[in-house]
């Protein structure tokens, strides 16, 4: 009885485990220890990255039924943001005041809502009014950007070298010229807030307690904007003066945060109005991914960039074991007779850490419980009194942040280029289909399988001089097999 229950619960795991062990023994024998271990480790590296892309995709799909085609773009943006922050943060520091000013304007919505809704606007003009207000806001933003050398700011990191980073610290626009820009962005934010308050729409509900929170948010963001405006140059320089390892870990955090912020903004502005039209959502997110890719191309040219590894992973020499690496910080580490780059081991560890973190959040936190329940029955969760919309925004931000973290993690060994997101997105979707929509542990297993398949496929292609397409095809073949045997994916919810 017990055994039967365990078998029922874990048969997918057991079969996979047995399959992997058999394949490993065959591989070990046929390939020899060295190439087997090396290939397996490369596979794990890829798998860790696939997991970070797929985890967000699968939870977003499971909870909101949204196929987020802009998820790869989040990966790419994470890579660019992290690379910029690490190499030369002039661009990020130059734009930060503008973004903060815009947000400061938008957060006043709950403050003006009680006034705006009492405004006598006839029903048929309300839509037009909102549209006009938004257009004016966009015009203000364009005017605010006039004359600002955004491309110049973007180019700073392209020429930066690690010899003397400070030599590349580029001067920002003087404050006397710059001050108008955040102000205009703030005004644009206020207009967006006005449109959000839906003037004349009396059916809205005013939430008690929203106004004091809005005041705190407004004051907070205005102060942040002022601080960011004043530290545009000094902030960038102090980041560059920092210990390079610390800067690297900060850039991981910055990349993930920027990704999460952009994710939240996308959910609120673009995805939320379209929940009722799921097919439009596919087109909208796909269109967005094109826009983001082209925008990146415009700013940084379609060239691939290489981000240098932090000193922690780039001291010359080879550590005899992982333990020795902790004191020597060498470029490579010897594992089971194989010399392997230490940075790639870091990626494996990062992926594993993110999986454990996600598992803890999903299984033991209230947010996780809400997400697991919401994946199964959204309406019911809402009927119980949970604000599902807010959970949606959080989950979207979380997924985008995780993908962005994957992007910046990949930046030191994969080329940073506008199309990098698309490749990982495709693999991310395949991972999600294999693992089952809505299951993060499925995403982890799927990512592991795909990563290994790619690595061993590459090895075989090289060995038998086949075309490298073999390894790309292998992932799709796995997906087809899984779909034939289990149409809902390995751990998917059954419809």
């Amino acid at each position, binding site marked *: 009885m017990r055994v039967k229950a365990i078998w029922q619960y874990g048969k997918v795991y057991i079969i996979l485990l047995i399959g992997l062990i058999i394949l490993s023994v065959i591989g070990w024998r046929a390939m020899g220890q060295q190439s087997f271990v090396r290939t397996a480790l490369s596979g794990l590296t890829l798998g860790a990255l696939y997991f970070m892309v797929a985890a967000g995709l699968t939870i977003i799909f499971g909870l909101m039924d949204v196929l987020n085609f802009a998820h790869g773009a989040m990966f790419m943006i994470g890579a660019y943001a992290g690379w910029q922050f690490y190499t030369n943060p002039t661009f990020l520091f130059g734009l930060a005041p503008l973004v903060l000013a815009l947000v400061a304007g938008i957060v006043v919505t709950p403050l003006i809502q009680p006034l705006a809704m009492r405004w006598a606007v006839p029903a048929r003009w309300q839509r037009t009014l909102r549209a006009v207000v938004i257009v004016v806001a966009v015009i203000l933003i364009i005017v605010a950007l006039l004359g600002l050398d955004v491309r110049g700011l973007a180019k700073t990191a392209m020429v930066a070298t690690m010899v003397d980073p400070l030599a590349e610290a580029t001067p920002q626009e003087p404050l006397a010229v710059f001050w108008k820009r955040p102000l205009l962005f703030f005004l644009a934010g206020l207009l967006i807030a006005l449109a959000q308050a839906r003037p004349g729409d009396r059916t809205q509900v005013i939430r008690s307690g929203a106004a004091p929170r809005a005041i705190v948010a407004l004051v907070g963001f205005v102060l942040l904007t002022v601080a960011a405006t004043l530290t545009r140059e000094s902030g960038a320089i102090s980041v560059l003066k920092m210990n390079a390892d610390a800067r690297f870990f900060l850039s991981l955090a910055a990349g993930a945060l920027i990704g999460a912020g952009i994710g939240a903004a996308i959910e609120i502005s673009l995805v939320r109005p379209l929940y009722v039209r799921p097919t439009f959502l596919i087109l909208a997110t796909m269109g967005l991914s094109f826009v983001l890719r082209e925008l990146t191309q415009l700013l940084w040219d379609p060239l691939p960039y290489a981000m240098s590894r932090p000193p922690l992973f780039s001291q010359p020499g080879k550590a005899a074991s992982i333990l020795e690496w902790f004191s020597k910080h060498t470029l490579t580490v010897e594992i089971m007779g194989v010399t392997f780059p230490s940075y790639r081991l870091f990626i494996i560890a990062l992926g594993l850490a993110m999986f454990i973190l996600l598992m803890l959040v999903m299984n033991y*936190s*209230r947010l996780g419980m809400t997400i697991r329940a919401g994946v199964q029955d959204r309406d019911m969760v809402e009927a119980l009194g949970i604000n599902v*919309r807010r959970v949606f925004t959080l989950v979207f931000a979380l997924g985008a942040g995780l993908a962005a973290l994957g992007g910046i993690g990949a930046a030191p060994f994969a080329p940073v280029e506008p199309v990098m997101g698309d490749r990982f997105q495709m693999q991310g979707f395949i991972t999600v289909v294999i693992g089952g929509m809505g299951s993060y542990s499925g995403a982890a297993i799927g990512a592991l399988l795909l990563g290994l398949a790619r690595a061993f496929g590459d090895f075989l292609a090289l060995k038998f001089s086949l075309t490298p397409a073999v390894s790309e095809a292998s992932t799709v073949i796995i997906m087809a097999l899984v779909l034939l045997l289990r149409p809902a994916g390995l751990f998917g919810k059954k419809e």
Partner: protein
Amino acid sequence: MAPEAEEREIILEARNLRKEFGGLVAVDDVSIQIRARTLHSIIGPNGAGKTTLFNLLSGTMPPTRGSVFFKGRDITHLPPHRIAHLGLGRTFQITNIFPNLTVLENVRLGAQAMGRHNLRLLTHSDKYTQYLDQAEQVIAQVGLRGREHMLAANLPHGDKRKLELGIMLAGNFEVLLLDEPTAGMSSEQVPALLEIIHNILTSGNRTIVLVEHRMDMVMSISDFITVMHQGRVLAEGTPREIASNELVQSAYLGALYGDLTAQAEK
């Protein structure tokens, strides 16, 4: 049935509700008053608009016209989660439990959804012991003790329905809208569930609104019955009044629908 039920205050009221889907009128000018601490059943044949009426009452859908009042407050345009926080809970016809959560997690979700700790989402869920205690209590009340750590998916069907009531009870709602709570149950299982429903009504300060399409089932436990037919209210009253109502009898005896609506409009 409670003897003084007719004098109790009105807790939930719909005024002239209308819902159109394209050209189809699902709910047509329905007004209904639910009195506090009573069991009010809404019955009618399939397609009578019962579930749509529930969706309008609970905010799941906005009405085309008309308004809903809960405890004297206009809730017509409130989102469902805010209506729930005011004390109006509902179940859905098909699935109401979360199959991949354990029994305890299911009930706890109901308890903590209504709590005031909404912003600290990342705290360990067991930290909130008051929810845990509340959940354990409810599990005992609906007779699921000993199965707390089973996945809800593995419960037998009758127990799933009990769990569903448990989730609602944990939410501490004043008014419960139950959409066909006996659907899919065999006729032997029905009396046990009805008894639990009856206990909920008498033990707490609760009001229950039931949707059913089987009339015999609700006669014995309801204080009031509203009969719906083709989106309209056909008859309203105590079970005795309904049982003796000719219109209702003909509706359930399969009179021609066209005749029936003609009569109802008179």
